[in-house]
């Protein structure tokens, strides 16, 4: 079976700075591929290449087996790749229904009289959100009044509704509490079950391990590891993610200073 | 841009106007006097620095006069302006640094100009003040002052209004805080036997000028004269009067082509001119006389170029001159 999206030995340079080098990633329908890495590991560069904001400089990038080079987010959307960004997924001051259809608004009428199909937009927004288990009494409220988790969900529901085949999620749980994170991961799993290929970017191995099928670890722009779920246990993933031997060193230092043990993994931002 | 050009060319072939425009102007053969030097004195450089804001047609006429005299006297004439006093004085300083042979300055805000005028004196550059500063000119050490006393001009307006039997006048100030403007209105108030009110308008915003005068005339039906302080505002006042359905007569300070036309067709009552062309011409010519012959005019008193009250009977002759930018 051909991967929906496949990156092989992809590199990206900003001038003389190496942002990404030799990174490979496969995304299959109905699977979640997790990309793990600390800040500055190259996760956002990877997203930008997949979502069409930047182009790769070396390696191959295929969409359903076809070599691709995306010129804009619009082009990526047209090829079925939807990206949901951590903090800029939505426009806070706009009503939920306007956000839901932003960039792909349905219209009635022709030429200069083409107007928004407001009724359809409102009703679809409400019913699509309901399908994902969010019951909004008022789709006219500014989306900024929703909680962070709900905003992520609206963005995911939007991508699913517009027929995305691949969903790229940038740190969807980073700014959220434990409970909200759980809700979002539920929707991520729901999107997978709907047959989408999901790329989940995170620095939280616990969240990744809960839903992921494959794991790619990035470190300073290079690939530090690539595993299928069956090949790796959570502990090992956490250890690799947290920096392996560096973490042991840190733990050693901290224990000598008689401070509580480093809790590992989870950070709240 | 090429589309614009094409549109201009295409349309200008197809859509000519048989009336008015540049062609009509060219056909009016009347031209300013010729520009050949009549003397063989060395080519001195005279600089003029005024407090004019950008785009004031009054100062165009002053410059035209100065240039005419410069052509005749074999002078290189340079001009600079800035409405802000501090920057105006900097401009004067830069001409002193450039060692010009003579300076012409306006003293709209005398205190700010005092030091640079003294510096010019010290550098041996003769200074003539024009337009504003009649009170300070002599004390600052200038040779002569050429201009109009704004209070005297205002009084002339008041007297003309009396002559016309006016009862209630409106003085329209288009620049709040301009001392000369206040003097004009106050002068008129002093000699006018009726009641005179002031109205401040936003001079750079014509529709605002119009609607403000309109409002005032609607608010007070007893107003029978409107006096604008600048020529461009007189036709606007006429529009405001028509719109407000008022019977007031519109009069103005200063002159331009539209005012001359208005005087002739009767939409304007009278204009008080201070002959800006003469201010520029005389300033350059007097500097030349001083350099050539150490002549000084005025005997320590200002040389007045106004006020000159212009009415319908004078307007016909002046219309040609206003069109070529010398009145």
């Amino acid at each position: 079976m051909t991967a929906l999206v496949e990156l092989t030995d992809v590199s990206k340079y900003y001038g003389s700075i190496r942002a990404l080098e030799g990174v490979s990633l496969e995304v299959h329908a109905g699977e979640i591929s997790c990309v793990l890495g600390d800040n500055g590991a190259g996760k956002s560069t990877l997203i930008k290449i997949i979502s069409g904001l930047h182009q790769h400089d070396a390696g191959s990038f295929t969409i359903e087996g076809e070599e691709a080079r995306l010129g804009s987010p619009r082009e990526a959307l047209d090829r079925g790749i939807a990206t949901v960004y951590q903090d800029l997924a939505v426009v806070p001051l706009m009503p939920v229904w306007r956000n839901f259809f932003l960039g792909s608004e349905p219209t009635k009428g022709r030429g200069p009289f083409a107007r928004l199909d407001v009724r359809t937009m409102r009703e679809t927004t409400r019913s699509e959100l309901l399908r994902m288990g969010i019951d909004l009494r008022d789709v006219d409220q500014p989306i900024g009044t929703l909680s962070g988790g709900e905003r992520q969900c609206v963005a995911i529901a939007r991508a699913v509704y517009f027929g995305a085949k691949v969903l790229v999620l940038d740190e969807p749980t980073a700014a959220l509490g434990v409970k909200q994170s759980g809700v979002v991961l539920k929707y991520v799993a729901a999107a997978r079950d709907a047959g989408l290929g999901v790329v989940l970017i995170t620095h939280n191995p616990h969240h990744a391990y809960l839903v992921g099928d494959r794991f790619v670890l990035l470190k300073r722009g290079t690939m530090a590891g690539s595993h299928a779920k069956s090949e790796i246990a959570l502990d090992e993933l956490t250890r690799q993610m947290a920096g392996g031997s560096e973490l042991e060193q840190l733990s050693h230092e901290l224990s000598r200073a008689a401070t509580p043990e480093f809790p590992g993994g989870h950070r709240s931002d | 841009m090429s589309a614009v050009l094409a549109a201009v060319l295409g349309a200008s072939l197809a859509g000519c106007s048989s009336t008015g425009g540049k062609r009509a102007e060219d056909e009016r053969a009347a031209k300013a006097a010729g520009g050949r030097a009549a003397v063989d004195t060395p080519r001195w450089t005279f600089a003029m620095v005024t407090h004019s804001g950008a785009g004031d047609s009054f100062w165009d006429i002053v410059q035209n006069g100065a240039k005419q005299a410069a052509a005749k006297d074999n002078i290189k004439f340079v001009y600079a302006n800035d409405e802000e006093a501090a920057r105006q004085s900097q401009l004067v300083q830069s001409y002193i640094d450039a060692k010009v042979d003579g300076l012409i300055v306006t003293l709209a805000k005398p205190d700010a100009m005092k030091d640079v005028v003294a510096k010019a004196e010290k550098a041996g550059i003769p200074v003539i003040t024009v337009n504003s500063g009649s009170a300070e000119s002599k004390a600052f050490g200038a040779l002569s002052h050429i201009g109009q006393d704004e209070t005297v001009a205002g009084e002339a307006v008041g007297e003309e209004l009396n002559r016309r039997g006016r009862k209630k006048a409106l003085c329209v100030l288009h620049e709040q805080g301009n001392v000369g403007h206040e003097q004009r209105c106050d002068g008129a108030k002093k000699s006018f036997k009726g009641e005179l009110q002031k109205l401040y308008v936003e001079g750079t915003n014509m529709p605002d000028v119009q609607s403000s005068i309109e409002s005032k005339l609607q608010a007070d039906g007893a107003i029978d004269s409107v006096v604008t302080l600048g020529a461009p505002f007189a036709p606007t006042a006429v529009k405001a009067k028509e719109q407000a359905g008022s019977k007031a007569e519109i009069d103005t300070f200063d002159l331009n082509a539209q005012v001359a036309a208005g005087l002739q067709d009767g939409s304007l009552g009278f204009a008080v001119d201070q002959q800006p062309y003469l201010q520029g011409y005389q300033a350059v010519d007097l500097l030349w006389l001083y350099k050539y012959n150490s002549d000084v005019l005025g005997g320590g008193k200002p040389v007045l170029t106004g006020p000159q009250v212009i009415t319908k009977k004078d307007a016909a002759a002046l219309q040609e001159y206003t069109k070529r930018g010398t009145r």
Partner: protein
Amino acid sequence: MSSTAVPSPAPSGPPAGGAADDGLVRRSPVRRLMGRPELGSVVGAIAVFVFFSVVAEPFLRASSLSTVLYASSTIGIMAVPVALLMIGGEFDLSAGVMVVSSALVSSMVSYQLTANTWVGVGVSLLVTLAIGFFNGFLLTRTKLPSFLITLGTFFMLTGLNLGFTKLISGTVSTKSIADMEGFDSARALFASRLTLGGVDIQITILWWIVLVAVATWILLRTRVGNWIFAVGGGADASRAVGVPVVKTKIGLYMGVAFAAWVSGQHLLFSYDAIQSGDGVGNEFLYIIAAAVGGCLMTGGYGSAIGAAVGAFIFGMTSKGIVYAQWNPDWYKFFLGAMLLLATLLNAWIRKRAEAKA
């Protein structure tokens, strides 16, 4: 001012009730009204209107209202596209002088080529739209703040206005084109008066109403309107979902340019000749009108109707002071104080509305 007007996008609101109630999707009409951005300005306008009706006897006459509406329309024609631009997250400081540039181009093209005045009007439209395009293009290309870009074009246009006028006409104002062919028909479109029930109505008022209607339609009922809100409220998020951010912003600047063209032609055909130094400072009146009308200074929120009401408040205040015959020395103070009060009232009403909504 802007900070008090933000409709609280804090993620703390009471959303997503667990239990589905009876499927009531829409808010009640009252609550919907309370949520409108122009609500505060309408209340402010009513307050100013009542105030001057009481203190200035001639204010309520039909002819006076026509004058007030004219004054409002000359600001309002520009305030509407400026409001759209502000909703789109940008400013245009060149808007005031652009009006004069447009008038100068029209006048000088007609005069110098001795062409039908409609030729000048057409060329002026193209040139003015090109200036708007230039503003938007430079902004999206350089990614510098619009405040700086348009401050640059403001100075450039001010210089070009004077420089070209002196170069071509020899003086600082253009020559009258009132005796040229096509002048009367152009005047009919841009600067005529209609008599309605014995009252003179300036045609700019009609232009104003039409522009408000078109702008409101675009803003609330078209895809472009959705994009305008989006690029102002979150340019990155909009780009990520495929909104053509660059085109939208350039389009907004060209919208301002179009209105500048209409205003410029009005100046030209009502005053025959144009002073090249005019227009400076008016750009702030447009921004004030839009802000008084509920447009957020930071973008993403506002309305065209609000901007029109803001312009009306300005028109009523500036003329109302004259009708009231207050001491003219204090004119600017009264003007500023009234505007400030109207704006404060606006912000206060909106805050209360949001607390309830």
